[in-house]
């Protein structure tokens, strides 16, 4: 139905895609695999008309076509669900869904009534009772994704492209999304599914196309592959065990959180993290995990409860005080909260070490160099802006920035979200090494294998409360899922 033939695309000196071909056929779900920087996003943006290929052609029903912009791609029946929701915060949910293709009535007016009815219809199909009249501002990420999906559905798409749509969704929501994708597929729609989660690819797709460094590696039938085969195709080499947490004897209590409460967000959360320990904080998206981390670090205020670091009470509402006490937070949103994208690698790393007085460029350079080498950041110059780095390397810069402070307690929020398999393993090894050196690590993660492989202890949150504290030996997938979904174990 829609196909790419020998497509290449460069940005300046970077060749993002080199001679890639891809066939999407009606009634088939096709997976697109590859590490970060492999060219998946570029490929998606070519299909959606955001970029135009430098070489090669797009074929629609066998005829060459050119998309001069997203509008052309949409007219051709291509609908895209982007990784990051692209909503209009000031407009109502209904207007968001139909922007650019509103139903009309006389004089070319927008038919609001019809639009609203259709929005209600779509939400009914998706099984979510979202209010069609509320503005998109303030919707949770998961709800925003649902609006995106409704948008794609409303298009009666012939080709549905999903660029990591599940990153922010919880189990039931993923299931619902897959249900919709399957029914579209069965109606003859071609589906392209981009994800880092291998199990999801196997669950949804028939074939998979793997990219590496902008080039096509292979297109296979998934049934003929094992997950290891797929990882090998993506990385080009075998990987050591994915989750290499070493056993350590836990030391002193480094972080003690007592009855922490933020009204309407989380209630009565108490736990301890000892030095040398990796404690995972599991739960569904929206259970309040990141919010706890933010309140502990002082980014958000807390309404009740206390935090002690190394036995000393921590002043609330001040990241500066938290840092002085030896806390570090690698936040959830790398691009928005973790990095100043316009600044260079060395200045980003230097950001946590600023003093008011005169700077020493040599000291700043030395600090950045040390940590960039230790974390094996792949870069050309330390003075390059962090934008030029891949997601995985950006995450390493965030880690370097915090580790350079030699913290006592490290909180990492989704440390491997959206980064490639190879870098993921490196991050895991690093966290394990740091714990062995005596660092206390609190790790928020939505990936169960990561939680089970890395954590000495698993805390589970459900609807703003801490509902389980499971030691490593007893931690199983079933038990954590049960706790996270509020069922008795």
């Amino acid at each position, binding site marked *: 139905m829609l196909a790419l033939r020998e497509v290449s695309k460069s940005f300046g000196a970077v060749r993002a895609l080199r001679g890639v071909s891809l066939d999407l056929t009606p009634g088939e779900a096709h997976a697109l695999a590859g590490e970060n920087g492999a060219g998946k996003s570029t490929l998606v943006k070519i299909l959606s008309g955001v970029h135009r290929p430098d070489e090669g052609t797009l074929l629609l029903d066998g005829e060459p076509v050119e998309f001069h912009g*997203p509008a052309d791609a949409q007219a051709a029946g291509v609908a895209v669900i982007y990784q990051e929701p692209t909503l*209009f915060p*000031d407009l109502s949910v209904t*207007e968001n869904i139909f*922007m650019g293709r509103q139903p009309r009535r006389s004089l070319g007016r927008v038919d609001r009534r019809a639009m609203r009815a259709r929005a209600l219809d779509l939400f009914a199909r998706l099984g979510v009772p*979202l*209010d069609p009249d509320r503005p998109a*501002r303030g919707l949770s990420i998961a709800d925003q994704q649902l609006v995106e999906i409704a948008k794609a559905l409303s298009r009666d798409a012939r080709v549905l492209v999903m660029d990591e749509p599940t990153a922010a969704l919880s189990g039931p929501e993923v299931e619902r999304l897959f249900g919709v994708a399957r029914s579209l597929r069965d109606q003859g729609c071609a589906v392209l599914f981009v994800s880092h989660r291998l199990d999801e690819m196997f669950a949804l797709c028939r074939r998979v196309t793997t990219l590496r460094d902008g080039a096509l590696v292979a297109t296979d039938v998934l049934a003929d592959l094992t997950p290891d085969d797929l990882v090998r195709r993506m990385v080009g080499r075998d990987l050591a065990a994915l989750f290499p947490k070493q056993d350590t004897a836990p030391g002193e209590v480094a972080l003690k959180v007592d009855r922490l409460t933020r009204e309407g967000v989380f209630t009565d959360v108490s736990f301890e993290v000892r030095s040398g320990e990796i404690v995972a904080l599991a739960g569904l998206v929206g259970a309040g995990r990141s919010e706890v981390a933010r309140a502990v670090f002082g980014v958000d205020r807390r309404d009740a409860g206390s935090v002690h670091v190394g036995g000393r009470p921590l002043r609330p509402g001040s990241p500066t005080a938290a840092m002085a006490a030896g806390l570090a937070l690698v936040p959830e949103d790398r691009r928005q909260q973790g990095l100043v994208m316009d600044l260079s690698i060395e200045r980003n790393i230097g950001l946590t070490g600023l003093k008011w007085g005169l700077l020493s460029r040599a000291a700043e350079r030395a600090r950045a160099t040390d940590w960039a080498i230790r974390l094996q950041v792949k870069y050309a110059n330390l003075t390059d802006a962090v934008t030029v780095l891949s997601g995985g390397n950006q995450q390493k810069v965030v880690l370097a920035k915090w580790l350079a402070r030699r913290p006592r307690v490290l909180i990492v929020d989704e440390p491997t979200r959206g980064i490639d398999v190879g870098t993921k393993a490196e991050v895991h090894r690093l966290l394990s090494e740091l714990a062995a050196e005596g660092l206390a690590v609190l790790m928020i993660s939505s990936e169960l294998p990561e939680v089970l492989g890395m954590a000495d202890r698993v805390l589970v949150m459900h609807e703003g409360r801490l509902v389980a504290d499971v030691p490593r030996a007893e931690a199983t997938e079933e038990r954590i899922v049960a706790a996270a979904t509020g069922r008795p174990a």
Partner: protein
Amino acid sequence: MTGLVDRVGRVRELGIVVALAALFGVTGVVNPAFLSPASIRDILLNSAIIATLAVGQTLVVVTRNVDLSVSSVVGISAFGGALILADHPGVPIPVVVAGCVLLGAACGAVNGLLVGVAKVPALVATLGTLYAFRGVDYAWAGGRQVNAADMPEGFLRLGSADVLGVPLPALVALTVVLAVGWVLRNLPQGRELYAIGSSPDAAVLAGIAVKRRVVSAFVVSGALAGLAGVIWAARFGTVDATVATGKELDVIAAVVVGGVAIFGGSGTVYGAALGALLLSGITSALAVLRVDALAQTAVNGALILAAIMLDRLLALRMARALRKRRYRDAR
């Protein structure tokens, strides 16, 4: 079935109406002359030009841009129109008016191309053209001043004539407000302006012709500034190269008081026009109340601050309300 978005907007506009009512009520009690037809007529006349400009400015601000150059466009249009009328008395008045509107639209197109196509931030681009257009105006005028005596009587009447008891400039402003308001509310092109201001990136991905929409917003703003220039010339009769200097901030003040978010995505032309009316109403009221005319600037400033604080309060209120009603059926 009205949405929360619409309701908050309406509350905001209602706020200005209440403020206007209070203003007229209180001032009227203290000095009934304030409510006389002549006085009301005066207020309408005074607010007409700013209201017309505020409508154009709203279009631009809604797209998360700003047009600082409007005052210079008014200046160049007013002088251009007056000069043609003075030096070429044979040219029919409608042609002059149309020419001024076109001249304004051309200036707007320059802004639009700089912002929409060349990607110069609107604040920088229109600050640049604020100087540049004024410079052209000065060069063109070369120190000359056109007086009422040089212009045909029929033209000057446009600035003060009444139609059905309403001064013509106010009628023009009202027409502009209703027309643009209708477009913004009902036509897809209007909705797209809000979308662009709300999230420029998402607008591109939604397939909206962002460049074209931004350029047209600036062109309309320029055209309305051109129209306001002609009205200025007709109303005041004395025109030189300094006409309307500094008015850009008054226009933005009206827009802000009217509840148009300075970073785009929300607000209506009705609000902006009411804002213009409120600001000139206050000016007149201060005069009637024999408050030192010099205090008027300070009152305007305080009003702008009050307006943005109110907007902030409403936004916080709305955020709180939204947290409680994620879903349709939840109360």
